[in-house]
C-alpha cells in the first residue's frame, strides 16, 4: 500500500502539484537546518531553501522512487544548491556570520559563539571530505545510512564503515577531552 508520502508524490506527478504542500511541510525544517549547518548564515540558508523547494517542485516529475528515496532526492538538490552557492560567492568569513549569533545577547555570548564557530570550522576542515559528509549527515541531519548512501552515491556498507571509524576516533578524542575536563574542574 502506498504511504501518504508516496500518494502525495504521485499526485504531484500526475498534474496536481498543489499537493506538494504536504511534502513541503514535512521537509522544510530539515532542509533549512541542513543548509544552515553548512552555511552558518540565516539569510543564505533561507535563500537556498527557497531554491531547493522551487526546483524540487518544478522537477517533481524527474523523481523516481526506484532510484532512491524522496528525502535523499531533496537533500541532493539542497546539496547541489549549496555547491552552486559556494561557486558563486566568496567564502564567508566567520566574523561576518557573527551577527547571526545571538545578536540580542551580550558581547560575551557573541564572542563565545564566534569562537565556537571557528572551532567547528577548524575541526571540520581537518576531516577529509567523505568523513565529513557522512558524519554530518548522520549526526547533524539525522539521516539513516540508507539515505546517506543515496545522497552520496556510495554503498551503505562503506557509509557505515566510515561513520563508525570516525566515531571510534571521536570517542577516543573524548576520552582525552574528558580527562582534561576533569583536570580543569579540579583546577578551578
Amino acid at each position, binding site marked *: 500500500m502506498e504511504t501518504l508520502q508516496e500518494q502525495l508524490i504521485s499526485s504531484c506527478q500526475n498534474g496536481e502539484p498543489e499537493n506538494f504542500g504536504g511534502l513541503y511541510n514535512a521537509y522544510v525544517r530539515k532542509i533549512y537546518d541542513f543548509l544552515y549547518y553548512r552555511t552558518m548564515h540565516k539569510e543564505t540558508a533561507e535563500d537556498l531553501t527557497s531554491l531547493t523547494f522551487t526546483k524540487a517542485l518544478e522537477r517533481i516529475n524527474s523523481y523516481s522512487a526506484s532510484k532512491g528515496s524522496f528525502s535523499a532526492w531533496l537533500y541532493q538538490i539542497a546539496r547541489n544548491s549549496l555547491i552552486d552557492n559556494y561557486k558563486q560567492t566568496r*567564502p564567508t568569513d566567520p566574523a561576518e556570520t557573527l551577527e547571526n549569533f545571538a545578536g540580542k545577547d551580550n558581547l560575551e555570548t557573541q564572542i563565545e559563539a564566534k569562537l565556537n564557530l571557528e572551532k567547528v570550522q577548524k575541526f571540520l576542515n581537518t576531516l577529509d571530505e567523505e568523513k565529513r559528509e557522512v558524519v554530518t549527515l548522520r549526526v547533524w541531519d539525522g539521516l539513516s545510512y540508507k539515505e546517506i548512501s543515496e545522497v552520496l552515491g556510495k554503498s551503505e*556498507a562503506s557509509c557505515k564503515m566510515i561513520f563508525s571509524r570516525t566515531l571510534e576516533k571521536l570517542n577516543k578524542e573524548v576520552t582525552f577531552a*574528558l580527562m582534561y575536563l576533569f583536570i580543569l574542574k579540579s583546577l578551578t
Partner: protein
Amino acid sequence: MDPQIKNILQDLYSYDPEFMKHEDRLKSILEELIKSKPDTQFDPSFAESLRQKLAIQAETQTETQTNKFNLNLAFFKKPYFIWGGSLMAIALVLTILSFGQKDGKPFLSVLTGKIQKPNPNSNPALTDKTSGQATITGIKSFTSSEEFLAYLQETQNIQNNRGYGIGGGPATLMENSSAPLAKSGFNSTASDSGLAANQTISRVSDTNVQVAGIDEPDIVKTNGKQIYFSGPQNYYTYGQPGIMNKISPDAELIPSQYYQPKTVIVNALPPEQIKTLGKIDTQGEMLLYKNTLIIFSYDRIQAFDVSKPEAPVKSWTMSYNGNGQLVTARLKDGKIYLVTKNYPDLGTPCPLKPMSLDGAAIEIPCASIYHPIRPIPDTSTFNAFVMDATSGQVSKKLSFMGSFGQSLAYMSEESLYITYTLNKDQLDVMVDFLTTNGKDFLPNSMTDKLKKVQGYDISGQAKLVELQNILEKYFSSLSADDQKKLENNMQNKLEDYYKTRMRELVTTGIVKIALGNFEISATGEIPGTPLNQFSMDEYQGNLRIASTIGQGFWVWGWGGNSESANDVYVLNTNLKTIGSITDLGLTERIYAARFIGNRGYLVTFRQIDPFYVLDLSNPASPKKSGELKIPGYSSYLHPLDTNIILGVGQENGKVKLSLFDVSDPSNPKELDKYSMDEYWTEAANNHHAFLQDSKHGVFFLPGGQSGYIFNYKNGKLNLEKAVANIQAKRALYINDYLYIIGDNQITVLNESNWEKIKTLDLQ
C-alpha cells in the same frame, strides 16, 4: 534517555558492540552535544512566505501542464506531517570542542608525537627500530593469513589506544587540483573508422596532465576522430580554500543520478559536420587507449571496444569488492596503473580479494601484502595493479597497509608514489610531554609514576585510566593557588612543546613502487601533508615534495593556520631525506606547487600570495631563490613557456589569472594579470579543465557557465574569445579547431579567426 541519543547509540552498538563499554561516556557526550546545539534560527514566517510562493508556482505549473485554470485552494492547507520527531542537530564536534576549551579559550593539551628528536632521515613508522637493522624498505610482507589478522588486531589495538589527530590537509581520494600533456596512446591509433578520406589529423590535444606521456582519467577524451564526453555529473573537487570542500555542481540542481548516466560519442570531423554517433549508458572519468575506452564509475570500471564508435561493445568489467574505492589510475604504454583502497576488518583474511574482473576475484596473496614493521593506526589496505588496457588482465599486483586518511598518488616515468597521512600516538605524546616537561611543574615522584605507567604492558585505554587516576590524585591535593600556578605553567610549556614537535605530529608515509618489476622499492616519511599530486615530482631519481606542517592535527586548539609552516623536502631514490627548505610562508598554507626541472614554484596564502621560486639544482641544498608578494592567490600553476608561469586563482572573490616571469629566479615578476568577471573556475582546482595551445599562443579555461580563451603573447593576457552560457567543462583541439565542450553542447571554433564553425546540441 533521549530517543535521538538512544538511536545513535544503538546504531553504534549494532555496528560494534565494543562501543557499549563506553555507554556512560558516550551518553554524556551526546547530552552535552544536544545542549550545545546551534540554534538554526528557523523562522516560521519565512517558511510561511515560501509556502505561499510555492503555492503560486504550483498553480502556474498546473496551468502550464493542464492548460486550464485549476485553482486548488487546498494547497498547503492539508496538515500533512510525514516526519515527526525533532532534529538531531548537534555537532558531535561542538561538544568535543567545548570539552576542549576553557573560558572560551582553547585548552592546549598534551599531545604530540613519538618523541624523538626530529630526524628526517629516520622513518619512524616504517623502520624496524627494535632490531636496529633497517631493512631496505622498512617493510615486509605477511607469511600467513594468521599473521595478517594478528597485524590487523594490533593496529586496532593501537587505534583504540590512540587519540588521533584527524587526517588532515585537503581531503583527496581522487587526485585533485591543478599540468603537461599526456599522449595517451591514441595518436598512434590507426583505425580509420569514421574518418573521411580527405580529413587528416595533423595535431590533437590530450588531457592536461602532470607528467607528459602519462595519461590521467578525465571526463573528456579524444583520439582526434571521436570525442568521448562523460557528463554532466557530480564529482568531487578539492582544495578550494576557506570553505568546506564541495562537490562540483551540475549546472542543473536536480541530482544528476536522476538523469540517465551517459557518455556521448561524437564524430569530430569534419568540424563543420560534427555529430553524435552514439552513447554508452554509464559515466565517469575515462581513459582511452587505442580502441579501448575505460570508464571509471563509482562502483566499477568498465572498458568498451570503440573500434566501431557508433556501436561500442563492452570488453571487460572490473568491480570493487567490499568497501573498496578508487584512489587513482594512470595510463602509460597501454598499461593501466590502478590504485584502490579498502578498509579491512578482522573478518578479512588474506588473500585479499579487492577487485573482480568479469566476476572472477583477483586475489592478492599474503606474501604480496606489505606492511610497516611497526603497526600504524587506522589501517587501510592499498591495492596497486598493472592491467592491460585492452584485455583488463592483471599482470602485476600488490597491497600494502597504509592509513585511512588522505592519500595521494603521483606517477613518474619510473615509479608510482602513494602517500598516506600518519598521526602520532597521542597517548605517547601526552606522556612524553608530562615526562619531559613535567619536571618544571610536577614533582619528581609524579613524573616517575607517569613513566612507570607508560612502561606497563597494558592496553592504552588502561594506561589512560591509570594516568587519569594519578593526575586526579595529585591535582586534588593542591591548594587553589598552586593549581592556578600549575595551570599557567602547563599552558606555557605546552606552547613551546608544540612548536618544537609540530613536524612530528602529522607526517606523511610514502610508498614507492618501481614500475619495472612492480615491487615496493622504498618507503619514506616526511613531516606534514602534501596538498595534491603536484606537490610531488621525481627528477633525476630524487623525489621533491612540498608539505604543509601544523595543519590537520586538531587537538584542543592546536593546529590550524596560526601555527602552520611549509617545507620542501628532497628525498633520494631510497626515500631518505637529503635536503630541505623549511618554514616557508609561516602561518600560511600551500595553495599550489609545481616542480619543473631544477626549479620549484610554490604559492602559500593567508592574506597575500607569496609566490616562491626555489632553486633545487643541488638536491642536498635546496634553497629559496626569490619571492613575489601580490594580493590574492594562485591554486594552479602552469608553465606556459620556459620562463613564463601562469597562476590560476582568486582575488577579491573573483577568478584571477597571473602571468609570472621567472627568467630571473631571484626576482620573479608579475608581468600581467587579468581579473575575470567570474567567481569560480574548475581549472583552479582541477588541472584537467585547463588547456594550453602553444601553437596559437592561447589557453582555455571554463569560468562559471562560460568558456574563455586567453591569448598570452608578448607577456600580456588578452581575452581572445568568450563562449557564453554553454556550461563549459573542457576544451580540446584537433588540427586548428578548438572544441569547447559544455554539459549540453559542443561549440567548434576556428582558431585562425575564432569564428564559430558549428554548435552541436548534446541533449
